[in-house]
């Protein structure tokens, strides 16, 4: 939690509000409907669309495409008159740095990456580790066996941020607790985000080994983990959005005690709004606990008894008293 208010180092560009805002959004692989951060971004887009009535175009990335193809996607958006362009996912780093330079009048944003730095690029990153720390605290407090499990969809640094934060949170309240860790697939095999069956198997393994809380940061595979938790009367922790309220997970909602909410939708919405109001800020904007970019959900009321404790930890993180690691 290095800097605590969004847009810490970015300077407001004096650019006046563009007459008409035309938003182009380029998804990462998975696109709209991935039940993960792409969907979250989509929600933000939809909100902006309905509130400001802005014109939007959504484009999807394909499995196995090159930087050149991503760059082409961004350029085509710019060429077709989009002046607010949002790239979802760090995979757009290179593509964006090339494209943004050629369209200075357009405003770009990239989700989940601190690079590239440019006058017309906003880098919207999230402190997933901080949010994960808090749900780790929840897990630690709620676990009776002192044994909890983390399931990562695909073994990437991004997902590892969830893991390390979670583990640190658990240990903070139960130093001697066991945290089981399993990644479903290794990159570039990204099926780990789409294979509920694997999620179930992994979760069962952890539950059989004594875990009673499972935290799946595994996109669509998470549903499988929750199924397992439900079958064995264990607890689950949602990720990315408040999954307790996700229709797709209605049948397992009662095992979801909390969720690590990563407000990509907020970030996207804010960004569009900012540009529309002529408030565009370039540079790094960390969405962390302090700024409410990440948080823990309380829907379902399963953790009402411990909310105060969790809030304490939140304060400590915000105040910098607790430093949450984001890498192993």
């Amino acid at each position, binding site marked *: 939690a290095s800097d605590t208010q969004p847009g810490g180092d970015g300077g407001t560009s004096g650019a006046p509000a563009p007459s008409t805002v035309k938003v182009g959004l380029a998804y990462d692989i998975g696109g709209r409907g991935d039940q993960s951060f792409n969907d979250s971004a989509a929600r933000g887009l939809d909100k902006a669309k309905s509130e400001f009535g802005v014109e939007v175009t959504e*484009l999807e990335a394909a499995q196995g495409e090159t930087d050149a193809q991503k760059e082409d996607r961004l350029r085509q958006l710019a060429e077709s008159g989009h002046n607010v362009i949002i790239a979802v996912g760090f995979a757009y780093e290179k593509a964006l740095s090339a494209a943004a330079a050629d369209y200075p009048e357009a405003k770009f944003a990239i989700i989940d990456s601190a690079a590239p730095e440019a006058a017309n690029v906003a880098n919207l990153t999230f402190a997933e580790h901080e949010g994960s720390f808090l749900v780790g605290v929840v897990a630690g407090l709620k676990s009776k066996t002192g044994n909890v499990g983390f399931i990562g969809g695909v073994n990437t640094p991004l997902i590892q941020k969830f893991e390390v934060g979670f583990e640190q949170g658990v240990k903070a309240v139960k130093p001697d607790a066991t945290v089981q860790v399993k990644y479903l697939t290794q*990159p570039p*095999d990204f099926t780990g985000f789409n294979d509920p069956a694997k999620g179930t198997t992994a979760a069962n393994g952890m539950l059989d080994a004594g875990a009673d809380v499972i935290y799946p940061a595994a996109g669509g595979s998470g549903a499988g983990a929750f199924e397992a938790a439900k079958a064995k009367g264990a607890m689950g922790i949602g990720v990315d959005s408040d999954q307790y309220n996700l229709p797709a997970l209605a049948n397992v909602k009662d095992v979801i005690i909390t969720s690590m909410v990563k407000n990509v939708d907020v970030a996207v919405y804010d960004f569009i709004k900012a540009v529309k109001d002529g408030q565009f800020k370039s540079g790094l904007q960390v969405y962390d606990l302090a700024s409410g970019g990440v948080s823990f959900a309380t829907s379902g009321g399963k953790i009402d008894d411990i909310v105060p404790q969790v809030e304490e930890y939140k304060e400590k993180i915000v105040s910098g008293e607790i430093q949450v690691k984001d890498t192993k």
Partner: protein
Amino acid sequence: MRTLSARSVLLGLAAPLGALLFAVLVCALILIVSGHSPVTAVDSLLTSASRPRTTVNSINSAIGYYLAAVAVAIGFRMKLFNIGVDGQYRLAAMLSAALAGAAFMESLPSFLRVTMTVVAAMLVGAVWAGIAALLKVTRGVSEVITTIMLNAIATNLVAYLLNPDRLAEAVPGSNNISTRPITEGGQVPGIAIPGSTSALFGLVFLAVAVGVGYWFLFGRTRLGFEIKATGLSESAAVASGVSVKKMVLLSMLLSGAVAGLIGLPQLLGSSHSYALDFPPGLGFIGIAVALLGRNHPIGMAFAALLWGFLDNSSTSLDIAGVPREIVLIMQGVIVLSVVVAYELVRRYRVRAEQRDVGRALAIQKSPEEVSV
């Protein structure tokens, strides 16, 4: 390898063109049924075709696809199905990227550096394919299984090595992770194309060279002949003094070596490091392209270009509101209709050939039964 007659040239052209036409019709139908306008689709295809950047990107993609196709085709020529091209090139790209990026390389002259990278990639690819070959000749294990398995194993191996404690370095602030970036001297400069922001990969010449080598191998050399013969009839090859085991080893190693090259144009021309987002899956595209190009050096080149173009114009379709999965469907339809057309033409060829045989027989015999 037959002498070109006017007929065979004509037929050679008839097949792909007719097929393409058919494919377009089918796709138009799909579009209409799914409530999209074929006109806008075709229109956006044409615009993207006329856009230099897209053209260059298409060719750049095609370079990788072509290399992949050649790697697969070498196996096909002797009935070896190397499904493992994918794993071979990913492992090769990753390791050669680590080598090319290594600090000690920076002192070396650029040419030597690139050469070492290329050689390393070929070696890695060959070794990975060699495992399958070895198991095949010593234990008769079907290369279909081993290469499928080795693909998965390669994935795990790469993931293991692509780790800050090993061959990778974490870029602070980034969620990506990659091998140490290859500095100027280790890269292969692209060829700037007027009107296009992306440059043509310098290693396009490598692909051309590989294509020529492939043609020469099977058209002119003894090794190529023996590989071909083994593919056509193992027993006849053995009786003719061909060592099948040797051929399996050689062709699989060759296939693997070429597979090792697949990632290099992208790596040395654009990515400059092997990262999480390095394009996977080219090995499988290679299978489709090889079959589409019927293992022919030129045919595969056209197939690769077609594939590259379709992949790179999918964004234009996307913008025009044509969902990208329709592009997948198109590709499938094209593959099918092209091969169906080829098959029909081939049948016609065979009949024609027999007709010639018949005439020859008739003439050499007495004239009376020439009258059909």
